[in-house]
């Protein structure tokens, strides 16, 4: 059979078999016991032409309903400038392997170096790795870093205000890795300072994980938390939505040791869950404990400034079971999205995006509350572009009606709360449509 991805003609195959000294392609598998061989072809469809494939994906696309997005919970519908799609499609970036051969991989290494710089500046911490799968796994890796750093202590404290999906991933890694996770209780939408202090005082804590903004969109005050952690020889780990760090107090400014989180909102499409980008930044003291790839600058034997993968002695292909992590590839191309996005937007652009989103969120919260059908769950807490409303109506039925109306009204929390996000993608009319829908309840 011929296929447009296979260059082999029957003549080519004959020439090659002759060189090898076998008479058929099947003879290349004479070492595979007969009992193991496929007795019949796979139960798969016949080969599809490119047109048929395109039609198939069009049909799948038509089976989705496009909804106006008021959902967030770590992933946001943001405007991606046209340059991103154009530049990331360069096949030299897209089809390259991990840059183990620096002589022919400077493009990849160079943008990762830029990415590391940008993430370091956003988080206010000195070192960034080359990227992580997503914010949830990055947070789990940070937890394992803290435990490895603490040596004999293997308990971590996690705020109850952390995104529950992230928490579930932390719990999974902890269960199998032999780490005890304790929850710091929440009080009125923020992490309880009292519970934090008493659990920290109980001893044995390797790390404390909190979020900024937290799951409810609230920007918490962590004054003194890093000092308390350090006095207890614990690391202070902050999970933050990357773009928000252009506006809110950074992990570095709070005195955190590790910053992790999702960076999807730096120019990546939502794509029903991925690929996204996780990031992990840390203080210089923790550099050699970091998981994943790290790019460094050096010089070559011709005197050029060049970039290489460095500190590889931490990694799985060298250290095997003693590696700091099992991470091999990460999200290379997604780091390029973030690098290009932050380059075109600059500080002013990121802050403008945050300001636009925040303004829309506050207007929306006010208008929704004015309907008398829902109210801010935590009215005294400061938020940026995401907030929780408690509803006075049947949320099941509302969610259905919203879908009918072409609106994704947020992410449900429990029986009667809704986590609502606004971004620069929403217009005045979109807000009005949402408010109208609530009025009908």
């Amino acid at each position, binding site marked *: 059979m011929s296929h447009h991805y296979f260059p082999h003609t029957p003549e080519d195959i004959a020439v090659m078999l002759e060189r090898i000294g076998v008479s058929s392609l099947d003879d290349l598998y004479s070492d595979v016991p007969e009992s*193991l061989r496929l007795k019949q072809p796979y139960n798969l469809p016949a080969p599809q032409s490119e047109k048929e494939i395109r039609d198939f994906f069009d049909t799948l696309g038509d089976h989705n309903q496009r909804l106006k997005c008021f959902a967030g919970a770590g992933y946001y519908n943001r405007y991606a400038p046209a340059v991103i799609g154009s530049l990331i499609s360069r096949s030299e970036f897209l089809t*390259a392997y991990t840059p183990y051969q620096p002589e*022919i991989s400077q493009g990849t290494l160079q943008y990762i170096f830029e990415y590391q710089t940008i993430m370091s500046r956003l988080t206010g911490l000195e070192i960034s790795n080359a990227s992580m799968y997503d914010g949830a796994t990055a947070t789990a890796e940070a937890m394992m870093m803290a435990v490895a750093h603490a040596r004999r202590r293997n308990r971590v404290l996690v705020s109850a205000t952390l995104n529950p999906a992230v928490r579930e991933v932390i719990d*999974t890694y902890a269960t199998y890795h032999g780490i005890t996770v304790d929850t710091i209780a929440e009080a009125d939408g923020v992490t309880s300072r009292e519970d934090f202090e008493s659990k920290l005082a109980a001893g044995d804590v390797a790390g404390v994980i909190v979020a900024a903004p937290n799951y409810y969109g609230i920007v918490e005050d962590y004054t003194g938390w890093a000092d308390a952690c350090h006095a207890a020889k614990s690391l202070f780990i902050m999970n933050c939505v990357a773009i928000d760090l252009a506006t809110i107090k950074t992990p570095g400014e709070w005195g955190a040791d590790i910053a992790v989180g999702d960076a999807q909102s730096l120019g990546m499409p939502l794509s029903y869950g991925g*690929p996204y980008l996780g990031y992990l930044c840390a203080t210089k003291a923790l550099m050699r404990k970091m998981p994943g790839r790290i790019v460094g*600058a050096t010089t070559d034997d011709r005197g050029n400034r060049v970039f290489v993968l460095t500190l590889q002695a931490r990694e799985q292909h060298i250290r095997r079971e003693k590696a700091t992590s099992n991470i091999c590839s990460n999200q290379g191309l997604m780091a*390029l999205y973030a690098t290009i996005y932050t380059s075109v937007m600059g500080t002013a652009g990121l802050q403008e995006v945050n300001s636009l989103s925040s303004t829309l969120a506050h207007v929306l919260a006010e208008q929704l509350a004015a309907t008398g059908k829902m109210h801010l769950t935590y009215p005294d807490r400061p938020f940026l572009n995401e907030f929780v409303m408690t509803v006075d109506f049947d949320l099941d039925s509302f969610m259905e009606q919203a879908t009918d109306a072409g609106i994704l009204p947020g992410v449900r929390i429990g029986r009667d709360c809704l986590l609502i996000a606004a971004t620069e993608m929403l217009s005045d009319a979109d807000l009005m449509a949402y408010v109208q829908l609530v009025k009908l309840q």
Partner: protein
Amino acid sequence: MNREPYSKLIFELSRPGRRGYSLPASPFKAANPLPANLMRQTPLDLPEVDEPTVVRHYNNMSTNNFGVDTGFYPLGSCTMKYNPKINEEAARHPGFASMHPATPARASQGALMLYYTLQWMLSEIGGMAEFTLNPFAGAHGELTGLMVIRAYHRSRGDEKRTKVIVPDSAHGTNPASAAVAGLEIVEVKSRPDGTVDVDDLRPLLDDTVAAVMMTNPNTLGIFEKNIPEIAKLVHDAGALLYYDGANLNPMLGVARPGDMGFDVMHINLHKTFSTPHGGGGPGAGPVGVRAGLEQFLPNPRVVRRQDGTFEVISTPDALGRVSGTLGNFAVAARALAYILSLGRDGMMMAGKLATLNANYIKESLKDVYRLPIEGVCKHEFVFDGLADKSTGVTTLNVAKRLLDHGYHAPTIYFPLLFHESLMIEPTETESLDTIDEFIAVMRDIAREAAETPDVVKTAPHNTPIGHPDDTEAALHPVTTYQQLVDHDS
């Protein structure tokens, strides 16, 4: 590929007052919602650049990069096959691009059908009962698969199984994933022919063993023909057999891991199923399990209801959650486009053509490169450096000399069984012409090694940059522009 280095950094192109974006004006008056102590305190220093500058910068940068679209990657164990262009269309389809992961199932039936379709197709190809697409990469799949295995043992109250056996030829991620999953690693030796020594394995199998991890064919490209016996030994000992799918490609159309007796497996979509490597991600590492283990797969799962619609569920028996979302959806879309294109007939051919290409290269070069293990290989094989050991030319030198000729280097110094490992995997998408040219270059390098060894030893000569000082990079790490400026001043 541009042979002149372009090494500028975006920070060096920044000029105060320039900008590269445009945003709509807000109809509302901006108000600062945060108290001063919760605001960013230090100024954020990001590049200030206009759009044309950004475009030229990254275009120029890309020209110093080598990709599959540039040339041939004989990179063992990495399966660098062609990345079809229709896959990219599928990945960026506007019908999915702006879908939030929290979209209700009712409004995402197309996306869920894509997901479910790939799940069952991978199950058919792997000979497994069910797949999850949640894991983000091969190593993440290994970790998830090992968690499935631990969840299975725990569900039976069998808590003492804390060991995982891996062959000495295993990929480095195997022991690293086992360690992250809280398992202890025991290594089993290879025989001189590169396959697992069954006699060495037998005494290691006791009631403390959770799993045996293998890849088949192994990293030497040799099919482990004792696999039925190994599977029986493993299962008799109460352990499960894990298939590292990194080497699945040559088995396409020939044999399925499930039929070989494997219980749990992962697949690297960026290898076998043609999704681009992206310079080191995003990949995807779907995990498949045999019947009876489905309930341990991670949450959330995509299932089909009796009425033919799809839903996302979470179950209490699951090992837990390993990802924030359902996984790298757009990577799954690419893999599905690839399977649809090859279809049943193409899928039956892919593995055989990959194996044909590998054996042809091996037979064409084994007189000048040392072939430690004779016989038919599968998708890849390993040379132990040059046949003539008197020249002082190493595998590293050969690899770097290949760069001069417009090829990516093979995988070198892996597996660890030989001193001068040089591992070649051509994949099925390389033509006889490309392969013949590669063989000619490899023979030229062997001749150069004998006649003008210094030319090879000092390679590369024709790449954008020369040999980087790795020692300096590791000794005094400079990992950000700030450190670079501080370091230079």
